[in-house]
């Protein structure tokens, strides 16, 4: 900078000298040779004076020019720097006006531009924030909606990867349900393909029955209409309603058998008495006893049939309803047919909640109202509700006029008595007052008054439609190699062992793993198993991971756990820290069970060697500290897997910055690190 300034100064000083020299030369060569001789003599005589004058003129002119330049150049430079701050670091920074009027005007214009730039940025930021908030609300709503559904819902991409599932799906179909995992891990591929073909041929959702853990599961398939095809599965446990139906059928069938048997005994005894009139008295008495006993049995069978819970209400949906809504429904039912009496609800009466089949009850009460009008001549019927006792609340129908006579209610109002009794209620007409009282089951816990819903943790968002953009686990090795790192699914795992020497009989005591899908560590999708190592655990190892021999005794062996782990990891890249160590323990079990982990392997230790080649330490602790992560839950297999997963995610952008984009590039870079050569030497198997 200083050199540049000196250069500018020198140029400013030299410029007038050059101009003067040029003018002098022009004058000298434009005159006659005689005059040139005169001029030359004059110059020689006045050389000293002329030289001083030339230097002085040059200096003064140069300094004046330099000063003028400095007035413009320096403020222009400052303004340029200010503009860069506005553009880069701080949009609220402004250009400081300085220098001559022209530059001040320029500064004002630049500040106007900066003002508009900032306003536009604020505008965009506001829009982005509003859109993000909308999206978050929608996510929340969808999560809640999925959470309250009792049927299992799965939304899948065309290739079968799960983009959404709810808690019911996990309950019904098991732990193999997870984001980004294939639905064909839980449902037969042929069933889905067959169903989709049926749906594509017609348009209605297709129903099929699948089998899961020996239970029938009813599956409805539908297409997602969008440019990227996919499908929705709604699944229900088919055993539950069937079990209820089967119990009812069984009860009815056994009752029918019992009735036939009893009728057989009665018929045979009665037949004997009729056919053989001269039967001895003692024998005749036995027949009569049989008839009496069997009559009792028939009565008891009828009792059992009605006492069986659910039989009466089978097919009746009961739900909570307030008395006000129930009585309004009665008014509507009365008004639906012309000619009914004037009917109103007693607004002063207390509000009670019932648990009833509101349609059946409203219809039955309406038929009582009509009976009062048509047969009894009542003109004004008042409906009211009363709390009654703990179990039963009352609906009262009253009118002006004489009370009902015994039997009027039972004979005149259709099946009202049956409807009420099926609810476990009772009804009667008061003998002395114009009143019909209907007792119905009260709602066990009255619903809370409407108010602000307490802020609760939203249910875990078990969906990610973005996953559709991510590629599935490829089949061919070459496709794995070309896969972009930010588009892959990963299973990050860790093991705890009895010691450090697999060659000398040390074994795995636990495996923990978590899946990374769509650039997020899915804490809802984890794998954690204790493994019985079939040998003792040295106290020095227990001190590290806290797993004792007693804790793992009876746990499955590694040969049993490995296939489950392989299933959990299927379709994803395996990631571990110092993974060669874990693989040295897993390799023998893989050979024994024939259940190899075929997916590519990545080692965060080597990746750190790629990203931070100059750092000495590549331990989990050192990496976590460098990347600003907390060391929580360390030294359990799952805890370490979760930490390794977070570290891995933070390493991805650093790899990207170094030009490592694909899995193949990363594997090549990792293999070339100094750490790779060391670990290969240590754990070659």
């Amino acid at each position, binding site marked *: 900078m200083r050199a540049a300034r000196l250069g500018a100064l020198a140029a400013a000083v030299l410029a007038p000298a050059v101009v003067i020299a040029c003018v002098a030369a022009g004058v000298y060569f434009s005159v006659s040779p005689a005059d040139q001789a005169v001029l030359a003599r004059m110059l020689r005589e006045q050389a000293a004076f002329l030289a001083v004058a030339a230097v002085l003129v040059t200096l003064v002119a140069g300094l004046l020019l330099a000063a003028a330049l400095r007035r413009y150049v320096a403020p222009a430079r400052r303004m340029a720097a200010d503009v860069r701050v506005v553009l880069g670091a701080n949009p609220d920074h402004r250009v400081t006006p300085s220098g001559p009027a022209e530059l001040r005007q320029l500064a004002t214009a630049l500040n106007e531009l900066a003002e508009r730039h900032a306003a536009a940025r604020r505008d965009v930021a506001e829009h982005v924030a509003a859109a993000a908030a909308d999206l978050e609300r929608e996510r929340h709503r969808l999560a809640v909606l999925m959470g309250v559904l009792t049927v299992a819902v799965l939304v899948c991409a065309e290739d079968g990867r799960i983009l959404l599932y709810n808690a019911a799906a996990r309950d019904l179909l098991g732990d193999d349900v997870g984001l980004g995992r294939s639905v064909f891990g839980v449902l037969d591929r042929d069933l889905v393909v067959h169903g989709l073909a049926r749906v594509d041929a017609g348009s209605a959702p297709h129903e099929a029955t699948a089998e899961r853990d020996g239970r029938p599961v009813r599956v409805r398939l539908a297409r997602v209409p969008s440019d990227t095809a996919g499908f929705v599965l709604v699944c229900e446990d088919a055993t539950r309603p069937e079990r209820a139906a089967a119990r009812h059928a069984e009860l009815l069938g056994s009752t029918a058998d019992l009735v036939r048997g009893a009728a057989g*005994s009665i*018929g045979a005894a009665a037949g*004997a008495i009729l056919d053989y009139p001269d039967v001895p008295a003692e024998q005749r008495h036995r027949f009569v006893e*049989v008839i009496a006993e069997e009559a009792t049995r028939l009565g008891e069978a009828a009792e059992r049939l009605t006492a069986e819970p659910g039989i009466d209400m089978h097919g009746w949906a009961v739900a909570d309803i307030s008395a006000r809504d129930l009585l309004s429904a009665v008014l509507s039912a009365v008004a639906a047919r012309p000619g009914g009496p004037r009917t109103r609800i007693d607004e002063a009466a207390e509000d009670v909640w019932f648990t009833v089949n509101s349609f059946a009850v409203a219809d039955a009460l309406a038929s009582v109202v009509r009976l009062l009008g048509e047969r009894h001549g009542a003109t004004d019927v008042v409906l009211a509700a009363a709390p009654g006792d703990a179990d039963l609340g009352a609906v009262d129908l009253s009118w002006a006029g004489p009370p009902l006579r015994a039997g009027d209610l039972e004979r005149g109002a259709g099946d009202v008595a049956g409807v009420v009794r099926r609810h476990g209620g009772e009804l009667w007409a008061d003998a002395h007052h114009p009143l019909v009282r209907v007792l119905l089951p009260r709602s066990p816990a009255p619903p809370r008054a409407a108010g602000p819903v307490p802020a609760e943790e939203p249910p875990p968002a078990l969906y990610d439609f973005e996953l559709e953009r991510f590629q599935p686990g490829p089949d061919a090795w070459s496709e794995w190699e070309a896969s972009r790192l930010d588009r892959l699914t990963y299973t990050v795992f860790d093991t705890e062992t009895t010691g450090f020497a697999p060659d000398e009989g040390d074994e795995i005591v636990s495996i923990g793993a978590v899946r990374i899908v769509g650039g997020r560590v899915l804490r809802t999708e984890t794998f954690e198993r204790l493994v019985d190592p079939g040998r003792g655990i040295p106290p020095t190892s227990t001190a590290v991971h806290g797993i004792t021999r007693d804790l793992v005794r009876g746990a499955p062996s590694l040969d049993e756990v490995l296939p489950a782990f392989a299933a959990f990891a299927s379709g994803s890249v395996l990631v571990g820290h110092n993974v060669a160590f874990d693989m040295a323990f897993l390799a023998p079990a893989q050979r024994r069970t024939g259940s190899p982990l075929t997916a590519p392997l990545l080692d965060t230790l080597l990746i750190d060697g790629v990203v931070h080649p100059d750092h000495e330490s590549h331990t989990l602790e050192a990496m976590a500290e460098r990347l600003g992560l907390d060391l929580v839950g360390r030294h359990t297999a799952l805890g370490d897997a979760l930490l390794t997963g977070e570290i891995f995610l933070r390493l991805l952008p650093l790899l990207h910055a170094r030009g490592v984009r694909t899995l193949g590039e990363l594997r090549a870079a990792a293999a070339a690190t100094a750490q790779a050569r060391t670990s290969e030497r240590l754990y070659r198997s």
Partner: protein
Amino acid sequence: MSRILICDDEPNIVVSLEFLMRQQGHDVRTVGDGEAALAAVPEFDPDLVLLDLMLPGRDGYEVCQTLRADGYRMKILMLTAKGREAEIAKGLAVGADDYVTKPFGTQDLVARVRQLLGAGP
């Protein structure tokens, strides 16, 4: 006079069946379950078994099938509280000669027994 084995776990029907068969002049023995029926057959050597289908333990079908498998050729009349076609078909398939569904008329039962015994070898 024939020997008739009545196999039913309901004492109230046995009272009448036993009386009706005795009135016809038969030699009658009664048992209350399938196991007892199989034990009684070799010793009593009945000409006809009145066999209830619903028995505790080994049911009437099994008793009938076992008797036929063991080579017994006596008449077997099934008594059933189940009246469905499939159950009757099954009863005849495992070797019963005839069936009577409960409830039944006493005279009809007596006539069937007489017919079966008369048509026997």
